[in-house]
């Protein structure tokens, strides 16, 4: 059972896009060790001959007829936006500073 360091948890937090404090990272590292120790039990019975199940229903490619139906108006779609402009979502800058 590998134990997680603060740096390991910081990396997971970065992947999950959560800006955690050092204190949170430390307490999570401890908790994760305990939880992972408990859930690792699945490995005791998960032998190679068993097929994995991802979903309770054996569904594949469920589609609907390709018919245009009424949908949200631009105003409705933008109604919950933290910021909007010209019928579009306004977001903080995505690329680096322009030269």
């Amino acid at each position, binding site marked *: 059972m590998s134990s997680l360091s603060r740096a390991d948890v910081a990396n997971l937090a970065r*992947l999950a896009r959560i800006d955690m404090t050092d204190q949170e990272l430390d307490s999570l590292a401890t908790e994760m060790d305990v*939880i992972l120790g408990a859930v690792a*039990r699945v490995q005791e019975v998960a032998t190679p001959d068993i097929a994995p*199940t991802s979903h*309770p229903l054996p569904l594949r490619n*469920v589609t609907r007829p390709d018919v245009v139906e009424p949908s949200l108006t631009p105003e409705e779609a933008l109604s919950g936006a933290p*910021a909007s402009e010209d019928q579009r979502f306004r977001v*903080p800058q995505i690329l680096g500073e322009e030269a």
Partner: protein
Amino acid sequence: MITRSAHEMSSAMVSGEITSQELTKKHLERISAVDKEVHAFLHVDTEGAMSQAKAVDDARARGEKLGPLAGVPLALKDVLVQKGIPTTCGSKILEGWRPPYDATVVTRLKNAGVVILGKTNMDEFAMGSSTENSAYGPTHNPWDLSRIPGGSGGGSSASLAAFQAPLAIGTDTGGSIRQPAAVTGTVGVKPTYGGVSRYGLVAFSSSLDQAGPCARTVLDAALLHGVIAGHDPKDATSIDSPVPQVVAAARSGDVKGMKIGVVKELNGDGYQAGVRSRFEESLEHLAKAGAEIVEVSCPNFEYALAAYYLIAPSECSSNLARFDAMRYGLRVGDSDGASAESVMNFTREVGFGREVKRRIILGTYALSSGYFDAYYGSAQKVRTLIMQDFTNAFTKADVLVSPTSPTTAFKIGEKANDPLAMYLNDIATIPVNMAGIGGMSVPNGLAPEDNLPVGFQIMAPAMQDQRMYSVGASLEASLLSQWGAPLLSKIPALAGSK
């Protein structure tokens, strides 16, 4: 009137004893009187409820044919979207958000004339077993206000036990309908996966989540089940076949000749003495009613909890990526020059609570390259084994039974700092979600040692939900004749009530 069943309220409206507006007003008054103590609701839609009630009264006056629950009030778990009504999922990240559309469950409730009183409290994004993880403070169990009402749907279960609503909607990913029902002395049903549309249900773990009915009687749950169930083209995982005949089953409550399998692994050590004694007593009732009690073994259930706490966090780490501070919900730190990524990171740090972050990190780990096979992959294999256990058990029995929850309601704060102890509350309910089958909890008495409610769990094969209702109704009838009055007649009065 407010202590009656939904079915009785409906009859009272049909006979002209009361109107939906009067009935709705009584419930709104009850909420005003006692919700300071209980905190079952995050939002009460007084105006919307009264106008829905008026629409039903007007339709009735015009002589229109109305459904069996028309005009009956209901409490909606705050994880289902209702157009224009605040929907938070118990999280700060959605504070103030008003969805622009209705969930299919909500559309069906409205079409059936059900009056939606408001949105109920829950563990944040349905992650928890106590409702303590709500960003808006815990809900209190009406049986003992110092105790938890179960979770994640503690607001829905508490609203029923506090007579704030005769019906509620819950959602169940690992027991979030059934465990709250058990600890509040109410009825909760997790239908077969795909039996009720998930369109408009804010996703936690998509392969496990299922909305279902919560009520004070088995018949009321069946009537509500009948309203919300059925195929929905807007949900690709919705089952396209007829809804099981749950209302007929609840009315007949016939278990003669039925084989009821007691799951050996879901009892014994770790289950409170009073939970076990009530369970044994319930089996005797069912045997007397003509059922045959057999024992079945599901050896892989002991791995279900571990597999669940890999699968659910893995799916949640993906599902909750949608809360990105860009299109709706909270946005924090959007100052000049801040990048989208820093705004996203900071918003998620501020907007998500501790348990949600814990599960996102756990899921991110379980899905990460190098660990996927050992964790998520192994959990998926355990899922196969659990489904096989159920398949085998259902060759020996028509339904399976167990206690719903290993203990009665614990004290608020008692397990808040021990995630593993908290997760154990769901040990008997999780296998049902893993297999996508149906599960029900029916109140079967008070534990003698603490006088708190205990629940009896009934599990049925996929799309055989009617079997749970037959067994639940039979047990309910036997217990009612033994007690002389429903279990909830024993609940202590709340200070806010007159």
